[in-house]
């Protein structure tokens, strides 16, 4: 009875706290500008099924893909078992579904156990890749400090979580064979769990009934506390990707990657130049329009969703021609900076009754430097690489627009190019009248 109350309090506390933080993330994302990504529902569903659910792009690199698949499958399937844990915790039952589900129950939990072992192996391998093998993309400069700790904390939590599962199931298996488990005795002599039926006796065989009950409870409570803790850690971590990957892929850019947005505000001005009788659509005149992006609020909600969805895997950066050749640009850092600044803006709003109070900072300048922006070749390798269709290039381009159109701070050579295009219709100083001279060369 007491334990049920504690459980319900703990669970609802965890759920409320998470919901509150998740809503803040949502609010922050919606600070972004409107962009239409609600068209083509069936195409979006398809891409989400293939790329997010089916992990299609992950398999470009098979080794991490398989390791990641272990964790992903274990995470998704474990949610089924979590239903029972929640029910057991709330009503004080123990393995409530076992009697009614029978063989299917044994199969399900056994399957989860096998996936958990695979996830355990995957996690150890991931820790090794980061800390021992030092895979280049996982040890780059932008990961120093919190990002590195964040990554390791996630992996260690997963190991602890899996250990709790096997404490819980292993001790219960030994108790069941002794006839002392709180699970209803179906007269079958064993819970029949694929891993724990062997691992349990190996680890806990010969222990007293009292100790076994303690180990089982520590495992059970440890597991649920870890789950709730992990859930609440997500909004503070890059690991929020496990939830946002799905909507992020759903709202992917479905246009050809080479197609950049045409700024509507500019179109209205240009149309007015070509046709003096052109009347821009209403609603434009009173809003001060900033060309391009200086801060996170100048970006679209999708670009901000991208930032929260990024799990800092660094595939983008490892394929970036600028980064490969030692330039300052790292597409991953662009995404990390965007999220860091957005979280800073969110905190600012929290402490000022929901209003943003100017802090004299901005994404461009305080986080991202022009040197990074000007190193980009717009080759789309980063966009191609991202397993969940994040688009760092669009942020780079929006910031270039700000630098050029608001600050007139393009690199000198490019200003020359602009003048040439304006005057001669070519980036070089050749007269347009000479454009067909090649024919007679």
């Amino acid at each position, binding site marked *: 009875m007491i334990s049920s109350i504690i459980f319900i309090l703990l669970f609802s506390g965890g759920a409320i706290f998470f919901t509150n933080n998740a809503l803040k993330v949502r609010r922050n994302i919606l600070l972004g500008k409107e962009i239409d990504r609600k068209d083509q529902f069936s195409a979006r569903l398809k891409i989400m099924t293939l790329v997010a659910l089916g992990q299609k792009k992950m398999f470009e690199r098979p080794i991490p893909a398989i390791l990641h698949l272990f964790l992903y499958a274990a995470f998704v399937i474990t949610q089924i078992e979590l239903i029972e844990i929640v029910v057991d915790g709330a009503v004080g039952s123990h393995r409530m579904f076992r009697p009614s589900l029978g063989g299917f129950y044994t199969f399900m939990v056994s399957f989860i156990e096998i996936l958990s072992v695979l996830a355990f192996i995957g996690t150890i391998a991931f820790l090794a890749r980061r800390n021992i093998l030092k895979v280049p993309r996982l040890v780059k400069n932008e990961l120093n400090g919190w990002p590195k700790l964040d990554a390791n904390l996630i992996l260690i939590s997963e190991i602890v979580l899996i250990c709790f599962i096997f404490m819980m199931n292993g001790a219960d298996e030994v108790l069941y064979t002794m006839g002392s488990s709180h699970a209803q005795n179906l007269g079958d002599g064993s819970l029949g769990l694929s891993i724990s039926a062997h691992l349990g006796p190996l680890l806990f065989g010969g222990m007293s009934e009292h100790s076994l009950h303690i180990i089982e409870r520590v495992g059970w409570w440890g597991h649920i506390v870890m789950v709730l803790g992990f859930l609440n850690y997500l909004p503070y971590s890059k690991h929020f990707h496990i939830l946002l990957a799905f909507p992020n892929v759903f709202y992917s850019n479905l246009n050809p990657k080479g197609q950049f947005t045409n700024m509507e505000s500019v179109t209205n001005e*240009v149309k007015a130049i070509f046709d003096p009788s052109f009347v821009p659509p209403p609603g434009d005149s009173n809003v001060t329009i900033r060309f391009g992006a200086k801060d996170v609020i100048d970006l679209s909600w999708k670009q901000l969703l991208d930032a929260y969805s990024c799990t800092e895997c660094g595939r983008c950066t490892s394929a970036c021609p600028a980064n*490969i050749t030692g330039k300052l640009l790292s597409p991953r850092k662009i995404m990390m900076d965007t999220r860091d600044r957005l979280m800073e803006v969110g905190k600012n709003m929290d402490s000022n009754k929901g209003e943003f109070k100017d802090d004299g900072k901005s994404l461009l300048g305080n986080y991202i430097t022009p040197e990074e922006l000007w190193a980009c070749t*717009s080759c789309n390798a980063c966009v191609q690489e991202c397993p969940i269709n994040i688009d760092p290039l669009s942020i780079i381009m929006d910031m270039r627009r700000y630098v*050029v*159109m608001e600050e007139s701070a393009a690199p000198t050579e490019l200003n020359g190019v602009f003048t040439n295009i304006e005057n001669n219709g*070519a980036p070089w100083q050749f007269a347009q009248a000479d454009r067909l001279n090649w024919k007679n060369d």
Partner: protein
Amino acid sequence: MSEPLSVPTMAEYLAKGESPEILFWVGCAGSFDDRAKKITKAIVKILNHAHVKFAVLGTEESCTGDPAKRAGNEFLFQMQAMTNINVMNGYEVKRIVTGCPHCFNTLKNEYPALGGSYEVVHHTQLLQELLDSGRIKIEGGSFKGKKITFHDPCYLGRANDVYEAPRSVMINLDAELVEMKRSKVNGLCCGAGGAQMFKEAEKGNKEVNIERSEEALALNPDVIAVGCPFCNTMMTDGVKHFNKEKSVKVLDVAELIAQANDL
């Protein structure tokens, strides 16, 4: 062997009261860059050889605005786009072939929303079409058995998912086509895109074109094939950097086809 080039303009067609099958969008590099002009001529030779009714805009053509847009000058881009759209819509242009993937991408993807909707193909796609329909055949065998590797232009490949057209064209050469490790969707940029062509590279420890040329040269090719005048410049410079310009040629797919046919 070589006949004089026939390069009619849209204005000439209009004067005759006719319209061509296709507009050949030459592009700034194709018009002014000495190396790229050779590619332009190769394309024209093929079009003439295949009796394609094409025309150029000539002095009415102006930069698509691509470098301005990628450099962040959206205003200048749209000014260029509207100017070009006015000219092309005036001629009732329906179909365009470009000699450059940057022009191709901009005309195909970024002009429609500004009022310029055309069917746009890259010259390697048109070559494939001409080969498939039998309008050109590859008779000469000057590249037979030669080792050729194709460097994917970013704005043809990743930007527009065109990977097969240049390759299926080159299959007709009876050459040995080899792929670099980073090819197709994983192709490495030559370093020129995003207006980098027109500025000094940012500080780093290597030039992008050196990194890419190194990868291509590691295959010991006879030819590095390209489909973009800017890639051509970058790869040519890269090959020179390694003093390989005597043994390794950097050629556009159009030049390969034209040379194979002794055009």
